[in-house]
Structure formats: structure tokens, C-alpha cells
């Protein structure tokens, strides 16, 4: 059984193609990362999953059946554009949203209190929404999406604007839900978050799916040609012939090794040289990061204008942030 099944969906707004030929599946108990820069079609795809908009072509199945509005009671949705009734008291608001999802007032009220305890915002319960901080409002909305115990949880950029402590708290909550069999999809342009938590991903760029599958499979299909080295002292070992690309930072370097059948040996000889010249505090050989994979894939599928190296910063719209946080 799969919770979500997108089959070649396509959506065009006037002249702009938002989503083109997108297909993927989400299984129960999966933490699914929907990745892509801003404006790549993440929100449009999520909206089509829950019938806010209807795809121009292709089909959407939820819980193994073609989409109908009757399943919406089993879906929890946190939109990217947060919104709550500002003047409304927090508990009333949660109860109201719970009732819209089919809960009775008493059940909704009990669960709302429990969730507020769990997310550490009990003091917010009697307050008006507009009196809360932005982070607290976001948590309230997070609760609103989960109050009716949905089987499919869709979170559009759930952690944007939150401090690390709260990101950790919400992320762990999602992981817990995942472990009891709920399917969680969250969209983000933060590759590091996905790398840490997701076991399945879909990468989209300009409405096109460019990579999807389980995290482990994707990673293992790439050679371990990245080296991270922290060191003190002489850096002449960085002229090693096996190095294709080098980024020097203060006290450490990121290295991409030249593709060769003896990749593992190259890494070892690099380490030997480094030890001979400098004091090494850390040396790690790894697969490319998700960000690097993404950039590589985009360069392969879509010719870029300047032909140069593409970075997340270029893909993002101005306030995107990318990986630099």
C-alpha cells in the first residue's frame, strides 16, 4: 500500500509551467523530503496532492484510491504561507480547526492541550494568537496540522524561521510520528535537513523531477570521492596529483578527487602525504553531499547560461539562503 501516488502530473499557470511530468510514491512510515530551490514547484505539487488545485493532466492517488475530498480528514497540512486567525484565542483556534477536520469539540480541546504540553507552549494556550511570537505561532499551526491524527502529514517548509532548538523539537516529533507508521512529507530547500532525517527524497527543479528514490540508494550510487581534511601547518600536500578540485578554508580543505579506478588508494596516499607535512586533526572520505549531487544533476539535465559552476545561491531566489546557514 502506498499513501501518495503521483502519476505524471502536470500543472500550468497561464504561461508558467509549475509542474511537469512529476511522478513519485510515498510509502507508510516514510520520511519523505521534497527538495528543490524556491519556485521549483514544491508547493504546487503539494497543493495538487490534497485537491486545493487539480492537475491539468496526470492523476493523484491517496491511500491507494483516486483522490476524493473525503480522504482529507486523514491528511494534515502545514502550508508554507502560515496563517491563523489573529484575533482568536489559541485554544479556540485549535478546537475550530480540529472540528473542521471532523473532531468533536471536547476531543479537539483535550488533544490541543496535550500537544501544547509536548511542544512546550502551554503558556500560549489562553493567549490571543496575535500576541504570540512568530515561532510560537508556527508551532500552533504545526499542532493544528496534527490534531486530528492524520496518516499523511504534509509540511511545506516546516522549519523556516525557527531557531535550532525548535527545529530539533519539531523534527523529532515528525520522526516519532514516522516511526508509528505515519507518512511524512516535508519540503525544503535546506539539503542538510533532508540529509539528516529523510529516508526517501525527490529532487525537483523548475517543475521537473531530476532525482528520486531512497536516500541510501542514491548516495551509494555515487563514488566516495570527497575528502574533508582539518589540519595545522604546512599545506604543500594539497598539490597531490589525485586532487581535481580544491577549496581552501581557514584550517580545513574540501577536496574532490579525480575519477580513477584507484580512488581509494589515492585517498590513502593523500592522507600519508598530509601526515608527513602537517598535523591532521580530521580526515574523512565520503560520498558527495546531497547539495553537490543536486547541482551536478541540474547541470546535466538543464544547460545553464554561463556554463560555469552552479551553486544553490544561483538556483535560489534572492532570500533563499541555500546551505550557508
Amino acid at each position: 500500500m502506498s499513501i501518495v501516488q503521483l502519476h505524471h502530473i502536470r500543472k500550468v499557470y497561464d504561461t508558467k509551467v509549475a509542474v511537469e511530468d512529476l511522478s513519485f510514491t510515498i510509502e507508510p512510515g516514510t520520511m519523505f523530503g521534497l527538495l528543490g530551490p524556491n519556485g521549483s514547484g514544491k508547493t504546487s505539487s503539494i497543493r495538487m496532492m490534497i485537491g486545493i488545485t487539480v492537475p491539468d493532466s496526470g492523476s493523484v492517488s491517496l491511500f491507494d484510491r483516486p483522490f476524493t475530498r473525503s480522504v482529507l480528514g486523514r491528511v494534515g497540512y502545514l502550508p508554507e504561507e502560515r496563517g491563523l486567525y489573529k484575533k482568536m484565542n489559541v485554544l479556540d483556534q485549535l478546537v475550530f480547526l480540529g472540528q473542521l477536520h471532523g473532531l468533536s469539540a471536547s476531543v479537539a480541546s483535550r488533544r490541543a492541550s496535550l500537544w501544547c504540553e509536548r511542544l512546550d507552549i502551554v503558556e500560549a494556550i489562553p493567549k490571543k494568537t496575535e500576541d504570540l511570537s512568530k515561532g510560537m505561532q508556527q508551532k500552533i499551526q504545526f499542532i493544528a496540522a496534527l490534531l486530528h491524527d492524520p496518516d499523511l502529514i504534509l509540511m511545506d517548509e516546516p522549519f523556516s524561521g525557527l531557531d535550532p532548538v525548535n527545529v530539533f523539537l519539531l523534527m523529532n516529533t515528525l520522526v516519532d510520528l514516522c516511526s508509528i507508521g505515519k507518512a511524512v512529507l516535508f519540503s525544503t530547500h535546506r539539503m542538510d535537513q533532508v540529509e539528516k532525517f529523510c529516508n526517501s527524497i525527490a529532487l525537483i527543479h523548475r517543475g521537473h523531477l531530476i532525482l528520486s528514490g531512497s536516500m541510501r540508494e542514491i548516495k551509494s550510487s555515487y563514488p566516495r570521492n570527497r575528502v574533508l581534511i582539518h589540519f595545522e601547518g604546512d599545506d604543500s600536500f594539497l598539490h597531490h596529483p589525485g586532487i581535481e578540485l580544491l577549496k581552501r578554508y581557514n584550517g580545513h580543505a574540501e577536496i574532490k578527487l579525480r575519477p580513477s579506478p584507484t580512488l581509494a588508494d589515492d585517498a590513502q596516499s593523500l592522507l600519508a602525504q598530509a601526515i608527513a607535512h602537517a598535523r591532521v586533526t580530521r580526515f574523512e572520505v565520503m560520498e558527495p553531499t546531497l547539495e553537490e549531487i543536486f547541482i551536478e544533476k541540474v547541470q546535466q539535465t538543464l544547460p545553464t547560461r554561463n556554463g560555469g559552476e552552479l551553486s544553490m545561491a544561483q538556483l535560489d531566489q534572492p532570500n533563499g539562503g541555500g546551505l550557508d546557514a
Partner: protein
Amino acid sequence: MHNVWLIARREYVERIRTRGFLITTLIIPLIMGGFIFGGAYLGSKSGSGAHIAIVSSDTRLALDLQTELQQPPDSLPHSASQPRIAVDAIHLAPQSAQATRSLLDRQLDSGRLDGYLWIAPADTPANAQPTRPTFTFTPRSSEQDSLRSTLAAALGAVLLRRQLAQRGILASDADSLLQPVDILAASAPHRQDRESAEVSITLLFVLMYMVIALYGMNVARSIIEEKTSRIFEVMLATIRPEEMMAGKILGVGSVGLTQVGIWLSAALLLSASSIASSLGSQGVHIALTAAQIVFFFVYFILGYAFYSSIAAALGAMTNSEHEVQQLNLFLVLPLFVCFLTLKSVLTYPDSAMARVLALIPPFTPLLMYLRVSLGHPTHAEIVASILLTSASIYAIVWVTSRIYRVGVLMYGKRPNLPELLRWLKYS
């Protein structure tokens, strides 16, 4: 349906609870009451106790006029309601004319006098027939201008009596000659109906206009609020835009009805109480049949729902309160057009024009109600009017929900007409 109820209830409860609701509920009747009672008070004050001076070299004429003004013949039936006028008669000595005039002017300024009548003797040659003197009335302000006609009538009577006396007619005979003719007002058999219908249609119009002006925009505002707070996306993930629109109209609408209900019952209580009668207001007796009352409510609610749903459409099309204010015209204009045709429908409630207009939804609530009260619409026409209006409310809500759904998902500028039409095709 459950969702519509939830939305409507939230909207209603949240709005009723606000301080704004309490304040408008109290303040508006106070202001209106203030106008009515204040106006009545001022009216009673300026109507009675006018104080004027009559300046004349002909002392007899001045005294006669004083008597005439201060003691209107009690044979006149409306004498009781005539304002009593205090009159000072001042003898005019030719040498002190200037001084007298400036003294009177000062008294006018200080408010001790409401006006003075200056009677200047005509310059007549000694042997010629005496001509009338010239009469000049100087009121303190234009408000006292009405005194002029009272003065003219009194002067006319005094001069006529004097001439009659010169021709040897006894004063008592003169009085009976001068007896005015009274025409008593009698009522035509259906006059009462017409009057009460006119009163109730005016009431309906004022209520509808007021409620739409006050609350129609609230529906639009509430929809815009949903857009700016961006909560719509959570809502649309669970409910249909139609349900949302219907809930908004019902919820915000009921707030308006509640407030009007409070005002109306307060007004009824007030008019039944002694306060109103002690003010001597000519109480309007609205003699309505039960059917008329039922139709009043039916058409009021239909009209209210119709205009609210138009307001909802305006709200769905726009992104800010400022924009929706510019479109307010669309809300008030049909009502105003309706008001323009009111007179002719009132006179000929069963004319072809009235029959057609009363079936056009924006006009139905007022005009059909008028026809029901005064004319003889067929049962089919009444049923058709109710069905047509209900159907158009449904259609407006449907179209609005389409505009809303697409509009909120495509943020930004106000759509133009082709875009709106295209949106209707989207789902």
C-alpha cells in the same frame, strides 16, 4: 453543511465578542436618538416664545397688531399649536428713528429679540388718498423668517378690519366675516393601508440600506482578512470554497441581524413607553397584517443575503480593504436605482414596469415587497420572485467561490475581466 455551520458559528461568535460590536450597538442608537430628540427639543424651543418688536408712528396700528398676534382668535382649530408670540409695540418718533433702529439691532444681536417690524408711513400728499405704509421685517436669523408670513396674515387682518370699520361695519360683524373656512380631512377607505405600506416600505428600505452599508462590507472585509492572514490555505485543505463563502455570509450576516434585532426591539420598547408619548410625537401606527409582516422578513432576509453575497464576490476579487472600498458603488447602486423606481411602483404597483422590475433579483426585495403590500401580484409571481432571488444568491456564491479559490492561489494584482472569466473555468 456541518462545515458551513462551523464557519458561520466561528464568524458569529468572534464578532459578537468584540468590543466594537458592543460599542456600535450602543452608540448608533444613542446618536440617532440624540438627533431625533435633540431635533424635537430644538424645534419646540424655536417654535414657541418668539419675541418681536413692532415699530410704528401709528400707535393704534401697532397695538391692534399686537393684540392680533398675541391672541389669535380661538375659533381657529389649530390655534393651540400656533407659536405664541410676544410683541413689544414701540412708538416711532421721527427724530429718534436712527437711535431706535440701532437699539433694536443691538437687541437682535444679543438674542433678546427674534426680529422687528418697521412700519414706515408712506409719503402721501396731504389731499391724496392715503396709501399703505411700507412694512419691513428684520429677522435675527433666517430661522425666524417664518414669522414673516404670520406677521403678514396678522397685518392683513388688522388692516382689513380697520377698513371695514371705516365703512361702518361693526367689529363683531367684521370678526364673523373674517372667520376662516375650515376643510376637515377625511380618509379614503384604503388610505390607511397605503400609508402603513409606505411607512413599512420606507422602514424596509432604510433598514436594508443601513444594514448593507454597515455589514455588507463586513463580509467583504472578513474574506479579505482571510486572504491577508493567509489562513485560507489551511481551510481549503479541508473544506470547499463554497462552504467557506456560505459560512461567511451566514455568520457575518447573522451578526448584522442580531444588531438590527437589538435596535428594533429597543425602538419598539421605547415607542411603547411613556417617553415617546410625553414628547407629543405623532406616533405612527403601523397597521400590518400577519402576512405583511412575514413577507417583510422574507424579503428583508432575501435582500440582505443577495447583497451580502455580492459583497463576498467583491471581497474575493480584491486584496485589500482599500480596493474593496472603491467597489462599494456596485453594492449601493442597485439599491439606489431601486429607490428611484420606488415612487412609480408605489403609485402603480401592478403596472407592467413594476411587474417586470419586481422579478429582477437586485430589485425584488424592495419592489416585490411593495407589490405584495399594495398591489395584487399573483401567487406565481411571488413564488417566482423568491425562487429567482434564491437562485441568483446561489449562483453568486458559486461564482464567488471560484474566483476566491483561484484568486487566493494566484497572489498579487487585481484581476481584470478576461482573467476573471478564465478563472471560472479553472477548478
